[in-house]
């Protein structure tokens, strides 16, 4: 599973993140290899989401470095990180509630569109061609994720599982190199989880997208992930293949609890 020849895409080194006196992440380092599915697991409040927030520039760690594609990344704002090809979904759905499904997916193309204000103003020539071209691309993604039937529904009224899928579609529309998924299967029933897992694998295999995901369902993680990082109270407990992690004593203790 772990292929030594694979290139490292992203590496986080000795990240420390504090909010006032609260330590959210303490000295965490791991890497993400190109083309793999990397899972981050841990109990609630372990700092998983904070870790994703650090990766996409929403939080700025007090200490630590982020290396992306062999270069040290300077401190960036989230919109700059998005330009480097990192997309994400959210734990609590963060769709644009005032828009329809197709419009939401189109927002993912925002960065690829670049025709200037004056073409936009007249919606003519290059601007409309661009719009049509990206619309085509979005329709393909909608097709891929099997959400054609809700294309024109306002997202606010969709059931939870579909909203999650639209969010994935939006992230895919960005054509990211690294896709961060924050609990993509939270609150889903078994069937929906199966669908979602299938999509994640398809994305990874068909588009070659590198994926880092946070998930609580261990069965899913063990099936999907190539390698797993375990966090607990902001510290790193283990890093390795699902098998290795599963048999790691510290991890078992953290999940089952030990007598102190």
């Amino acid at each position, binding site marked *: 599973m772990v292929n030594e020849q694979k290139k490292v895409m992203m590496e986080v080194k000795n990240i420390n993140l504090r909010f006032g006196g609260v330590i959210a992440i303490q000295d965490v380092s791991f890497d993400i290899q190109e083309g793999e599915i990397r899972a981050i697991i841990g109990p609630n409040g372990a700092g998983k989401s904070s870790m994703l927030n650090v990766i996409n520039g*929403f939080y700025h760690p007090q200490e630590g470095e982020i290396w992306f594609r062999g270069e040290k990344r300077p401190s960036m*704002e989230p919109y700059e990180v*998005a330009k480097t090809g990192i997309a994400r979904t959210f734990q609590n759905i963060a769709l*644009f509630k*005032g828009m329809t499904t197709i419009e939401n997916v189109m927002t993912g193309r*925002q960065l690829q569109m670049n025709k200037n204000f004056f073409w*936009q103003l007249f*919606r003519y020539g290059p601007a409309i061609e661009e*719009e049509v071209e990206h619309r085509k691309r979005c329709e393909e993604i909608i097709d891929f994720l099997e959400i054609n039937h809700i294309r024109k529904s306002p997202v606010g009224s969709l059931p939870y599982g579909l909203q999650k899928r639209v969010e994935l579609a939006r992230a895919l529309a*960005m054509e990211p190199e690294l896709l961060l998924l924050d609990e993509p299967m939270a609150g889903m029933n078994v069937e929906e989880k199966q669908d979602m897992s299938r999509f994640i694998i398809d994305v990874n295999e068909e588009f070659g997208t590198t994926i880092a995901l946070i998930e609580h369902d261990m069965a899913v993680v063990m099936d999907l992930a190539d390698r797993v990082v375990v966090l607990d109270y902001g510290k790193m407990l283990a890093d390795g293949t699902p098998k290795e992690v599963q048999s790691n004593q510290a991890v078992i203790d953290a999940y089952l609890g030990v007598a102190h």
Partner: protein
Amino acid sequence: MYFRETGQFKSKYKEELAAFPIFEDKIGIAIAALLAFVLIPIFGLPGLSWDFTMSAVMIPVVIFTITTLGLNILLGFAGQISLGTAAFMGVGAYSCYKIMTIFPDLNALICVVLSGIVTAFVGTIFGLPSLRIKGFYLMVATLAAQFFLEWAFIRIPWLYNYNISGAIEVPYKEMFGIVLTGAKSEPLTRYFVCLGFLVVLTWLASNVIRGRIGRSWMMIRDMDIAAELIGVRPLTAKLSAFAFSSFYIGISGALMVFFWLGAAEVESFDINHSFTYLFMVIIGGLGSITGCYFGAILVWVVPVILKEYGKSVFGIDAFVMENFTTILLGVVMVVILIVEPHGLARIWQIAKQKLRLWPFPY
């Protein structure tokens, strides 16, 4: 099934991206255009004199629709609240006056457009706080703009050319031998100038809103954090919304003084007017261009007509009617908020939905 999409297939994305993809909508627009361009200018409105129809109903409502468009772009599409609308209209009016004074030979219409650009700059400056704050906090920041600008309109005599009256006095302007502004201009000319602006500005607004920039505004409105993580730069998105919106508001301010009132003092730009424009947007429908038309018509035309009928038909005192319409406006607003917070535009949409299925409700 009066109103239906079925059977109207689109084979190209381009067709579906058109402004009015559905045939029935096109008919509706044609009827509205016929009314606005031909029927009302010729016959006026029933029960009202032609002069009154033009100068107290049609010209202002067209101008206020432009204002409402501007405010709706900011509030309805970009989600940034502003209570400084009236003051920004003032910026448009005073800058138009200054431009006309400095370049006396410049065409009046170009002056109006330029004053829109000036207002866009001023609006962007007062939009800067939106980068740090939102919601009610931003509202207070825009109040700062409102009160500061009101003060400036009084205390900086340069703005009104040191006129003793302290007011803008509209100069005489003509184009192709037709008098555009000043006391001698025909109401019909002024009406068509305003209507022309409205049509062009509506078209431009609908273009921008359906494209990349409009989407970035709506992203910021709906979920600013997610928008940023997708790559929208809040600075650009918010400030462009302020600029674009202020451009509209500035143009409407210039039109209001030069093509409707004929003279203006600071009272035309006070905070109560800002509230009225806010009402137009809310009653019409946040985030809807059609709604801007509904809102301006309901908030402006209905009270004016009521007042006029009240006076001529029932002989009611103007003071009483004035207060009655103020109360009515408040009541309508409350009812709209309770029944359908998305305003008349949404009610219209629901009605269309019903027509789509009629006479079979399911």
